[in-house]
């Protein structure tokens, strides 16, 4: 990490290409409820729509995007105090503290910018990212067995976690 400048900014339209390449990686896609390019593009369109309200973030190393996160702010009044979020990191830049840095940024933004009381997330069983969420204080509140079904018939259980801010 020496001599590398890290900064986190609100995501931009042009970050879509990075997000697509990270999601479309066969090692990464199993951890998301997406199956093909059309679905990935649809998810990216929704993800990046949150940048317009400052709720999508990109972490850069020397101005090159290496990870992104989004807070899917609810529009409905009764739900606005809590939100689901998602995060992804370029696999070449894992285990360098960048995911943790981005998560801290998301948590701070959730509290200060959006007045959220609760952040929650969905992680699929076996995803190593779960340990990062646990370290940051996220607690499991429920599971959904067989939530994802891959084309080869493999099922993945979804673990729901939340953090009171």
């Amino acid at each position, binding site marked *: 990490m020496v001599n590398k400048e890290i900064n986190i900014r609100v995501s931009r339209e042009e970050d879509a290409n990075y997000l697509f390449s990270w999601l479309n990686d066969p090692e990464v896609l199993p951890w998301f409820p*997406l199956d093909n390019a059309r*679905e990935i593009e649809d998810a990216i369109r929704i993800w990046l729509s949150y940048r317009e309200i400052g709720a999508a973030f990109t972490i850069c190393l020397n101005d090159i995007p290496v990870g992104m996160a989004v807070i899917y702010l609810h529009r*409905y009044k*009764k739900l606005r*105090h*809590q939100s689901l979020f998602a995060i992804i990191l370029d696999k070449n830049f894992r285990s360098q503290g960048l995911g943790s840095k981005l998560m801290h940024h998301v948590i701070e933004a959730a509290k200060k910018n959006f007045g959220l009381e609760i952040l929650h997330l969905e992680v699929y069983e076996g995803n190593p990212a779960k340990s990062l969420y646990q370290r940051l204080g996220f607690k499991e*509140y429920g599971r959904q067995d*067989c939530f994802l*079904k891959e084309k080869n018939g493999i099922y993945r259980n979804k673990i729901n976690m939340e953090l009171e801010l």
Partner: protein
Amino acid sequence: MKDSENLIDSNDFNIRYTTQSDEPYLKKWLEDPEVAKGFSFALEEERDEFLKIWMGYVRFKCSLTATYKEVPCGIATLFLMPYVKLIHQSMGYLVVDSLFRRKRVGTSLVRNLDHLAKNYFKLERLHFELFGETPLEPLLEKLNYKKLFTQQKYVKEGSSYLPRIVLEKVFKDGQ
């Protein structure tokens, strides 16, 4: 019709696919403040948006309407998942006209929705989400839905919170 009558035993009771012409009934039921407590919308524009989303599923023939003397008295709908990895499961939504409660309309709608989910859409799991205490929870449990998890403080009204309770019925266990 007497209060004690089991509506589903009546020859005047029917269940059919929902049509776009049922929208005014669904709108009217969702406008009932007691009904609205069971859903995530609060404001009029939110309710209208939710109604639009709900009616959007009708074209997929995944929505059933209960009628009494050919007038709609309840609707149950599968909110089908749009992504390939999720199409084996779905969330169900149900609303019954307040004048037709405790007459087994809800029971009949959920039973028929289960059948539709399992046999026509080949779903393996069906979920319902409830906000706080609602008569729908014992109804679903009676129909073999199991509580999956509770998400505390999911809904906030004023300074008070309601949990989100997710129930599930498994038609085919992939484990």
